[in-house]
């Protein structure tokens, strides 16, 4: 579930509220993002990807996470970790071209692994 909006980082661009598929995030009268309906959060991490400044943290727990500690998460490099793993930056996509998923497909039990080895175009 969405747990943190780090106000010291947030530039109030409104993107997270725009892209959240479940209408969890909204902007208030001052344009600052707020968690309006936490119970609707589907733990998809997508708001994190679109945030240009890594100001959001979603816990992998689908129930509220009492262990979340902003300073510790930042120190551990976990805020923004998903977008870095994907290769996204400043709220924009990147990294698809280095996706190594073909290795999973080629590892399927034969003959299907062989079929995937022939699936380059």
């Amino acid at each position, binding site marked *: 579930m969405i747990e943190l909006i780090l106000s010291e980082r947030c530039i109030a661009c409104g993107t997270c509220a725009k892209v959240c598929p479940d209408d969890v995030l909204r902007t208030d009268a001052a344009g600052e993002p707020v968690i309006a309906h936490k119970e609707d959060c589907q733990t998809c991490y997508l708001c994190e990807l679109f945030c240009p400044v890594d100001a959001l943290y979603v816990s992998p727990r689908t129930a509220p996470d009492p262990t979340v500690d902003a300073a510790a998460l930042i120190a551990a490099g976990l805020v923004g970790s998903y977008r870095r793993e994907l290769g996204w930056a400043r709220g924009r996509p990147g990294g698809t071209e280095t996706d190594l998923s073909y290795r*999973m497909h080629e590892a399927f039990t034969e003959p299907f692994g062989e079929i995937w080895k022939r699936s380059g175009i």
Partner: protein
Amino acid sequence: MSESTLHLTADVLVIGGGPAGCWAALAARRAGASVVLAEKGYVGTSGATPPANTTLFYTVPGDRLQNDGMVDHRVAPAKGFIVRDFVRRVYDETTVNTELMTRWGYPWPRNETGKTFRGNLRGPDYMIFLRKRLLAEGVRILDHSPALELLTADGVAAGAAGITRRTGDRWEVRAGAVVVATGGCAFRSGVVGTHNLTGDGYLLAAEAGARFSGMEFSGQWALAPAEGGLTKGIIYFSGSFSDADGTPIPHPGVPDALAAGRSVHAVLDRADPYLEDGYRKGQPNIFVYFHRLGGNPFTDRYPVRLLYEGTVRAAGGLDVDERCATSVPGLYAVGDATTREKLTGAAMSGGGPAVAWCIASGTWAGQAATAFARQFAAGTAGLAGRPVHAIGGAGLRPAANPDPERTAEAVTRAVQQEILPLDRNYRRTGAGIAAALERLDGLWEAARDGLAPPAGATPRDIVRAREAAALVATARWILASAGQRTETRGLHRRADFPGLDPAQHHHLLSGGLDRVWVRRADPHEEAVAA
């Protein structure tokens, strides 16, 4: 609340902006139609695909071995209904459209031979790419705008009406044809990506008289780490399972162990470093859980749970013909909202076929809907001037006095209590189905009569009430169909009929609102029997 209504007309209205809806909108636009796409959430992040990443099946032109291998791969697990020639057409159409993506600049990864590999669509990248393409082609996107009901003109689908979640403003789109692309229904079980997938499209189509096929093939349960909701299954090809004491459990035995209340742990101990790198650099979404909460899934056992996905990446859904037309004139359906029995039989459609079907069905429906819409002139002489009726009922317009006890939350919880408990639903019994149906029939009547957004309702309340009605209706089509199939086949499991009965290689069509009906239909003449 001060509300206004946005009035639009379009040749084609698409409801739902997952991959199937996006491809339908693109195909209609490219065929010359004006197109509006209304999405409950946000096109690019909503639906099952963006958080998941999806394996895609396709045919490589000119490679017979590859083509036959792709098509044949799901024939045995299908347990009937699958039609090879149809599957082939779906994968061929997929390849044609991935070529379009190449032309539009999609950054495909490459395999060891240096060729483009199209077998994995990274969810957020793919969906944002499609969003940009929709805008470039001139599709009008309405984000955060759930459709609540269909408009019809003399029994022909003629548009839809809905609400804008942020403002409470209403919208009404009059259209020459409507494409339902609202995905499957996972009953708010907690599966990541399915929060918006509440069967809305089924309900609004059924109100116009549309029917379903294969709703009993919806016993799609998937593994997630015990505290998480991401149900990516591909890692378990490299996994081993054990109980609390470390006693091994074979993979096929995992659901029954969990249904019996045993704790089950997984570890991905069958991946070598090369493959581990493939998982980590292909599906980073899976590993956020472990990165953030601790533990290495390749070496450390972790507890898992099963979550219900319902008709998402399962088999049952709206019954459509080869052009993706429903039984209602002017109404088309695509992707997870439809039956996928000819594609993957009674088994799950995920893992490659499902998203190929989104591309193919979207393309075919977009083209067919455009052709259908050509009969209507523009302006008040045609589309805008047709006398239309808004036909939504339950959850929107209560048939009797609103009952304050019938809140959307209470109705949703009551449906979930019938459909989500693993022990009663992984394998069902005839008696269990009958008892659940009786309770759900009562719930339907109460919801139809009394479920309404409360006084001073927010847009969220209005949407929730309609979603709750859709959940009740969907559960009834599923269970009524499950009661009529006295065997175990694919995603339909009966504890009282554990074997497959070759005499039951027939489809079960279903439909109806106040009175749910189920009847048999012959499989396609070329369908491969189990």
